[in-house]
């Protein structure tokens, strides 16, 4: 009983923190004409996608965990 109410409390806290952080996001950011830096190719999140894909493959093959940055992109027998 106590545990389930504690879990509910945690869930509520989690939901509230997501809502408040999303609401907080609305005060962050810049005007459209201030986005010159984000138009740079090297600021794109997938700018070095081949390097990231190759790194992911190495670490996927050699370590016990993987992914995080994006969906892992499929499996192989290398693990």
């Amino acid at each position: 009983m106590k545990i389930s109410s504690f879990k509910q409390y945690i869930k509520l806290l989690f939901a509230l923190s997501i809502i408040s952080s999303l609401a907080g996001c609305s005060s962050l950011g810049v005007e459209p004409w201030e986005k010159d830096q984000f138009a740079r190719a090297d600021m794109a999140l997938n700018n070095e996608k081949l390097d990231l894909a190759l790194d992911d493959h190495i670490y996927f093959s050699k370590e016990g965990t993987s992914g995080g940055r994006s969906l892992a992109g499929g499996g192989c027998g290398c693990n």
Partner: protein
Amino acid sequence: MQLTSKQSIASALAMASCSLLSQQASAQEPVPANDDWKVDAAIMYYGEQDRVQAVEAIGNVQKAFGEDSLLDMKIVVDSLTGASASGAVAQSISQTFTRPSGKGEYTVDPGETPLDDTFQDTRVQLSANWQEILNPDWTVNLGVYGSKEYDYLSLGLNAGVERSFNKNNTTLALSGAYTNDTVDPVGGRPVALSEMVFRGDYDGDDAFQAAFDATRLDGDDTKQTADVMLGVTQILNRNWLMQANYGFSSVSGYMTDPYKILSMVDGNGESHGYRYENRPDSRTKHSVFLLAKGALDSGVIDFSYRYNTDDWDIQAHTLETHYRYYFTPSLYGQLHLRYYQQQAADFYQPFLRTEVALPEYASADYRIGDMSAYTVGLKFGHRLSGGHELSYRIEYYQQNPENNGTDIPGELNNQDLFPSVKAIVAQISYSF
């Protein structure tokens, strides 16, 4: 043209340097390239000291259809050779192992970590992804994936949706993937924790083959993976953005490594045979990924942190950074640092004990044991005329496996049970 005098050599040099200078000047101007097609290609070498060597070629073609549609296609071909750790422990005497196929044996010298040298494979991977901007706020994508190697086939589908808010300063992304893998190991799938048999213990080939077959299961097996990822990307100010992702993954099916074994060790640390490993057939994974990326006056920098946890009790922390500095507008250098630390799966053990009853699950694969690893990398890139870019990088990667708290008996204390793995990565990339 044949050069007949010193004067013509001088004028030819002058012409050549002028053309080089004009090329430099044009590289700094925005070039009206053909935006419809974008091609990235790279070839990478990965080499471990005394172990696995791999060469991987990767090509990515992007084709835009109007303003709103984008097709992305990728091909990867890789080739692996060399030896990988079998899971057995080093001994003060030489050790002989039956190959996974059951055909032939290999011997490991005293004091050496047992490596299975039959590791050899070629893999081809194809994937395609379609992205469609529905309106200024909504973007969707759909993709297919396939990867084939001799003993493994992976087929997958993925889809995602993105919604922009707050003058495009905030993007929420939800994506999902489903993958079905088929495993058909060389020599068949070992019976869980069955004992390795040796040709020398049998009178004839038929008797040995019958004993070997008794340790194997018929046919192939499958593994299903369902992934869901929820992400938010937020522009913080004129120079900085951040990304936060939560990933959930549910895997069911065959996750045992059919080529990995464990030594059966007595109280003196002496080995009395080997057993094939066995892993659970379900795994639920969670990941949290945080990234901050900033535009600097003469470069770019990013920092990321990743936390992984799963119901195999593996927990991992990854810290990573890339820092790029432009020496000139067309030449940059980049530093890559990564640190990884992992806690062992609950069924990981470096060896089995002869006097203890067999557990349900066991693996001595150091890749799911306690481990830390680091990467140091350098990359240089040239921006060429016409929007082309040539880059090369070299990286050093070292893994330091550690004892997960297991008592080490007798003579095993004289062996290096957790040897480091050292690897070099070298890569050349070209984009146009």
